[in-house]
């Protein structure tokens, strides 16, 4: 009796959410890190950028420290330690990473990508963002294409979103406090690529996952996917109940392709009191 009920109670307790939902942004957070492109040849550069939000910071300045680490396949989730990492020059939230310089550093550390007999090498990019006394950390993975013939990935394209089936007008989008609205992402054509997974014979299409955040209100789901259920219903839509308190709120929508590709958008909403 005890353990089965415990299992159920614990499960449901975990779901019921004593804590605020991860979709509610109330403090300094990183919502996404992007490498453009997400997989890169040894001769190109990468543009790194981060979606960092600080809704209660009052516009304070943010500084970023970027590092790159080789990933130990035995411990793929190990932290990227400062002493064993390649420091990326600059403290901006968006900057350029020179892959040839990174490759030279790796070679000095005994990991010469040119000598590795694999189609690709995955590296970890570590970001630490500071805002006054606060700091947050984030990681993302970057693929180095060691085989020139290896097909690379492209970041997905998030073109916009629909509110109740219609494209929003100019920002801030004006809505009524406490009202419920259906949100649907709009993905760029060709965004969802076909690719050949490792050790597979047939190509499959990327799975696009949407993550929803806002500074107020609540979403029906924190995540939606670009797919349909057995009845043909779209699974990418979400429902957002706007906050009761009038004011300016921000909504962020992040799209991931499951292969370290990412895109995002943000929109401001002015929530007005009910008549």
């Amino acid at each position: 009796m005890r353990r089965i009920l415990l299992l159920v109670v614990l499960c449901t307790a975990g779901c019921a959410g004593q804590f605020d939902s991860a979709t509610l942004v109330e403090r300094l957070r990183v919502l996404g890190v992007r490498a453009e492109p997400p997989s890169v040849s040894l001769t190109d550069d990468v543009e790194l950028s981060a979606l960092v939000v600080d809704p209660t910071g009052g516009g304070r300045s943010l500084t970023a420290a970027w590092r790159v680490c080789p990933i130990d396949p035995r411990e793929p989730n190990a932290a990227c330690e400062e002493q064993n990492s390649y420091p990326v020059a600059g403290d901006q939230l968006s900057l350029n990473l020179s892959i040839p310089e990174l490759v030279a550093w790796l070679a000095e550390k005994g990991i010469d990508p040119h000598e590795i007999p694999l189609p690709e090498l995955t590296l970890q990019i570590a970001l630490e963002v500071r805002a006054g006394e606060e700091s947050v950390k984030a990681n993302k993975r970057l693929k180095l294409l060691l085989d020139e013939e290896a097909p690379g990935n492209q970041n997905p394209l998030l073109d916009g979103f629909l509110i109740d089936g219609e494209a929003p007008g100019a920002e801030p989008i004006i809505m009524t406090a406490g009202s419920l609205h259906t949100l649907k992402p709009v993905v760029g054509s060709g965004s969802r690529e076909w690719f050949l997974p490792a050790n597979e014979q047939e190509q499959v299409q990327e799975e696009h996952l949407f993550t929803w955040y806002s500074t107020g209100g609540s979403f029906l789901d924190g995540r939606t996917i670009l797919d349909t259920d057995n009845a043909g219903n779209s699974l990418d839509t979400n429902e957002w109940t706007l906050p009761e308190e009038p004011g300016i709120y921000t909504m962020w929508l992040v799209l991931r392709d499951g292969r370290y590709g990412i895109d995002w958008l943000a929109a401001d909403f002015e929530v007005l009191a009910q008549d």
Partner: protein
Amino acid sequence: MKKGNLNSFELIVVVLMLGQLFVPATSLAQEGQSIEGKLVHKDSGEPVIGAPVQLDGELFVVSSEEGVFHFENVAPGWHRLTIDDPECAPFEVRIEVIAGKSIKLEYALDPRGKDEMEEMVIKSERLELEVSNTVLELDEVGKIPGTQGDVLKIVENLPGVARSSGAVGNKGGGMGAMAAGTGYGIVVRGAAPEDSRVLIDDHEVPLLYHFGGLKSVLNSDILKRIDFLPGGFGAEYGMATGGIVDVRTRPCTHKQYDGYLELSMIDASFMIKGPISEDVGFIAAARRSTIDLWLPSVLEGIAGFEMTMAPVYYDYQLKLDWSPSSEDRLSFFAFGSDDRMEFLLSKPPSGDPSLRGEFSIGQFFHRLHLGWVHASPLDWQVRISLVGGYDSSNISMGNESRYIRTDIPHMGLRADFEWQIAKRWKLKTGVHWTLTNYDVTLRMPQPLKEGEVRGPIETMELLEGSEEALIWYGGVYASCSFKPTENMVLTGGVRADGYYGDLTSDWAIMPRLSYKYEPWSGTIFKAGVGLYQQAPTEDELSKTMGNPKLIMERAWHYSVGYEQELPFDSYLDFNIFYKEMDRLVSTDPDDKYLNDGLGHALGMEILLRRDLADGLFGWLAYTLMRSERKDRFSDPWRLFDHDQTHILTLVAGYRLPTGPIMPNHGQRDGWEFGLRFQLVSGNPSTPMVGSVYDSDYDVYQPIAGDTNSQRLPLFHQLDLRVDYTWAFTTWALTLYLDIQNVYNQQNVEGVKYNYDYTEKSYYTGLPIIPALGIKGSF
């Protein structure tokens, strides 16, 4: 009949022979060779009049109005004494008559209706038992509150056993581990659950409880005796570095039909037993859970959770015994268990958003035992059993994104030989062999080991594939008990165990020694030391999930103890134990697992117990313990996951009969009250001291602090039970109420964190749960 299978009356005789005072009796040497006995009713103390008493199946006398019987001119040697009174349970005992001496005995007989094996008196053969052994008297412990009448769960209330709380919180990874952890084991003297073995009639079962603790997989009414051996056990037990729960089923030697039907909020069950012919008897029982009838409505309305198939379990047992002669018994025993549950999670836990969708847990096993016991009048006994079985489990999570399916057909043979070589020498020897075919298909992260914590399951590397492996397990043992004097037993034994399979093999020799000394009646000093080794689990030896090159885990057990009989039918059992463990399986980034783990456990156990007398029984069990581990030699010592410094359990039962015993079924009108109180230190916990956002998976990877450096709050809980029985002429009706957590204590069972590990709160245990049941027996 094997010594360990003595019924209560035989034990009383043993007591008499040892000069003990637990049951009023005496054993006096007299001139000549005669046997004089007196029979009394156990409940009332009144003489049993006109009871037929037979010696060696030939000489026949009837007890007098004083309950006295005599046999004169009895030849020296061993004799079989049988009493078959229609109002009392049948009784049989072997007695040794020494040349020139007579025996005077007094027997206290049970009322008819109780199985002759049922009333096992814990104190009677203490000198003959293992150094650390608790025997459960099934009749008295069956109504302890909080156990739903499940005697196997009583083991959890004995000294040395940690309170089980399931795998919760970040320990073992929430849902995944909870699902994977369904089912097995108890934590004994600081050993991991998989280090202890549960044996049913000499053979291991894969699962002790339905759904990891709901109820045991065997109907309590088919059990005869449970020996709980927390450590320092003899050479006849192998492949365990923790403890042993040795369960014996009833022999089907009934002279009348009886049984019951029972319905409660937990399950519905029936049992029937009786004779098929003069030499053949049977027991049949089956059970189905009833939780699924009410649980979905209780859980209805919880956001994000839908119970698509409420927990359902079944179990069944069918046993046939044939006694072709007074020295032989053949048995056929089929039993099995099946657990299933499914649910839909649309709102995942905050830190693990990928845990959503359909989840299912299914697990079953079936067993077929064939056994033969031959008890020679020349003081030896052989016991041979053949077992075949099929175990299967199927666990899937998140719409089959993670799953593990195992199918394990197996067969085994065990033979034990026991010989009373001379008055002071006794030999035990035996072999066992098991062949297991382990077939697994999985898409699942590597299971976490003790002491480990994990982050979101989505970011864990998946092990994927299927594998089939054939593994042989074998063992041989011999032990010899020597009694240099009547009040001293020295037992030495040696055991060899091994396993062999594709890419994997190991074997070990293990010496064991124990000593018991009774300087004066009612006081026993005891000590034991031994080496214990066990094979890694199948998944640890797996090519896909583990490392086939692993060798056997090892533990040295040391214990000293003291037993003291006390007034009011009570006694004290005090033990100090120490365990030194090495070669424990621990995770390794290169080889998945290595035998690099080390451990030790030091503790003290006190059991103050009163046996059933004047309607009152109970015990107070206290354990003071510290168990530590390290995963490799260079690591610092840390607390074991289930380390509980203080474990205090109070169990009490009181019977208040208001009517006479009904001869047809042995029950009487009246009340029974039960109480259980537990006060236990909280389990260790590893704090999360920070996190890093993983942008590719939209989850936070926790940063763990020192392993098990914190402890959850103290646990305490009171359970109560009340039964009332109406005993009619041909049947009896019992109504009971079992209330768990009477004062609704919100006990902490684990820690949960918010999505980025900046906030935490506690999982709490079950609230007050009253369970009503009804049972009709005949």
